[in-house]
């Protein structure tokens, strides 16, 4: 008895000694007098524009918090890092943010692979991560953990909202053209889930490699199937190019083109012609400010800080993600991980697009989805979409916590 106790003690002292070696970084984290939010986003690479907007929006949340006096005089600080859209780089940067910079929370990312990587690193170190990109898996086990939060939409939610609208309006004969990776697969699963209930007929479900630059080889076949709806399930540049080529092949004459997500930035970049008449979903469009007061306030604040421009969809998620974390810290009265988690679970808020809630069981933000249609350019170059329908926040539209593996 005595012996084992001794052994245990010496082992403990060894542990303590080895912990001492690693002290500097830990000490720095504890004595820091600011709330640090690490923000890895892909500043370089194809989503640089979106990432810069995420930073601009996140900064608004930070300055709002600080102007309101911070937390007992403690100010918030945003630590922006370039994840280069690479999961390995993102993991390294997140480790750096936590170990060297002593970040209290992590928020950010713009791809499923990157957010899952960041999540794994943060969860290993018990640091709260609020993800702002599309993914079903992040809210489900085994990726999810107590420290995982997801302010972004899930493909199931997005595709469900768009599908409910489109399949009811434009016809039941559907062709899917999806990018061959998780985003595509999850979105198509979401479309099919609502489609089954509405009795759609899937004529073809085609996959293309991620990052393809030519869709001409797929388009003649799609054309010959004569679908009512072509659902283009891809993202960013893939979406721009495939839309353009589908337009060139004259597909729009016979078929309605629908995309799960229409990006404000992509629409700005690719021009009106390719996007004309295309329907899709979004987490945010600045135009909702006519009906949503918080959106008006957020837009105004953004316009003031950014020469009259308006925030983009993914950018606004950066605002919401950071603001949610700061709200959690405020309610918890500090940055203690367990207390902040408790404060965030079940939190109801309206930051910028109407009422939302953080579902307690999986930390997924229950939120409205907007269905938008691209329109021709008018006098206002920012005015590129019509909001044609709104799906209010409803937890029933999400995958249930049970199906995600939560008990």
């Amino acid at each position, binding site marked *: 008895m005595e012996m084992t106790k001794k052994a245990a003690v010496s082992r403990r002292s060894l542990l303590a000694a080895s912990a001492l070696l690693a002290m500097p970084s830990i000490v720095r984290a504890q004595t820091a007098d600011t709330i640090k939010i690490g923000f890895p986003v892909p500043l370089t690479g194809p989503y*640089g524009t979106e990432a810069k907007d995420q930073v601009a929006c996140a900064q608004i949340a930070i300055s709002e918090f600080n102007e309101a006096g911070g937390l007992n005089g403690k100010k918030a600080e945003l630590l922006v890092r370039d994840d280069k859209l690479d999961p390995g780089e993102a993991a390294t940067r997140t480790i750096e943010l936590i170990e060297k910079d002593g970040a209290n929370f992590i928020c950010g990312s713009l791809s499923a692979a990157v957010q899952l990587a960041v999540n794994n690193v943060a969860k290993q170190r018990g640091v709260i991560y609020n993800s702002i990109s599309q993914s079903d898996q992040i809210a489900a086990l085994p990726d999810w953990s107590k420290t995982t939060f997801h302010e972004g939409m899930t493909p199931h939610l997005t595709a469900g909202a768009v599908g409910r609208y489109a399949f009811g309006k434009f016809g039941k004969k559907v062709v899917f053209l999806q990018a061959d990776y998780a985003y595509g697969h999850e979105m198509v699963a979401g479309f099919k889930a609502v489609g089954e209930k509405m009795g759609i007929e899937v004529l*073809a479900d085609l996959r293309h490699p991620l990052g393809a630059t030519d869709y001409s080889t797929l388009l003649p076949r799609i054309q010959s199937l004569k679908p009512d709806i072509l659902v283009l399930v891809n993202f960013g540049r893939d979406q721009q190019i495939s839309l353009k080529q589908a337009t*060139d092949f004259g597909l729009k004459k016979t078929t309605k083109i629908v995309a799960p997500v229409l990006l404000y930035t992509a629409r700005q970049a690719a021009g009106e012609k390719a996007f004309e008449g295309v329907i899709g979903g979004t987490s945010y469009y600045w135009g909702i400010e006519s009906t949503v007061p918080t959106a008006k306030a957020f837009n105004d604040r953004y316009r003031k800080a950014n020469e009259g421009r308006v925030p983009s969809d993914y950018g606004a998620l950066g605002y919401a993600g950071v603001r949610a974390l700061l709200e959690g810290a405020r309610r918890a009265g500090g940055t203690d991980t367990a207390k902040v988690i408790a404060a965030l679970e079940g939190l109801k808020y309206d930051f910028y697009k109407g009422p939302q809630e953080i579902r307690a069981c999986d930390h997924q933000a229950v939120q409205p989805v907007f269905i938008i249609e691209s329109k021709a350019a008018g006098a206002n170059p920012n005015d590129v979409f019509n909001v044609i329908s709104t799906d209010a926040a409803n937890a029933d539209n999400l995958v249930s916590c049970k199906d995600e593996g939560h008990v």
Partner: protein
Amino acid sequence: MDGITPDLLALQLFTGLALGAIYVLLALGMSLLFGMLTVVNFAHGAFYMLGAYAGVLLLSIGVNFWFCLLLAPLLVGSLGLLCERFLIRHLYGRGIDYPLLLTFGLSYIMVEMVRILFGTQGLPFDTPDALQGASDIMIGYFPTYRLFVIGVAIVVVVALWLFLERTPYGLIIRAGARDPQIVRILGIDVARVWLVVFGIGTGLAALAGLLAAPLQGASPEMGSSILAEAFVVTVVGGMGSLVGAVVAGLLVGVVVAMTSLVAPEFAQVAIFALMAIVLLIRPQGFFGRAGLMS
């Protein structure tokens, strides 16, 4: 595999040829640089991308598309000349590693310069009005612009062939590639020959990029994704062989198109599988000289 009719197959074949036309132009330039200068040009994709952006720039100052077809390759080709004259020239005869590393660095610089000047987002590039819509090609309707791309590729291939085989300049270039020493002894400035070759090679890449722009828009990354494919085409055809570049370019285009019909998600890997098979059966590619570079 329902819905695959003979007409669709024929249409798909055409789609493959249009795709291949772009590969042909890229691979011609790459093969020229390799065959004549033994430069493995990692910046070839960047020159391709510059071609598209040169087009964007020229269109924005009011030059029409037809003049762009001439001016953009000339503009980018001149940049190629500068690169050769001031950077790559120092590296001849020092193995393939050094030009490879240098052009790799160059491509980084060029891509980033474009990002600074034109933004990271990429820019739209509309199909010229005269070439919009689809044309009836007996088996069905086919986008007119893609037919045009095939046409341009044919013209360029014929012109290049005539230039190399039927003009005194072409003779010097071919001689210079085979034995620079002798050509120099004959009193010809080989350095200038190589300069011109580099200009032609990069100009061809720019033309390919310009032609691709109406299909996919212009973006800073457009060159990096196609670089590997261009390498594959060049190698399958046989490094340094222009006939090989044409045959392999069209073949790869058709293989991609046909794979897309049967199993689209395999389209990208099909290219590499094709290369592996070809090289295992014929290690020097279709028309390559055996023992080159070993």
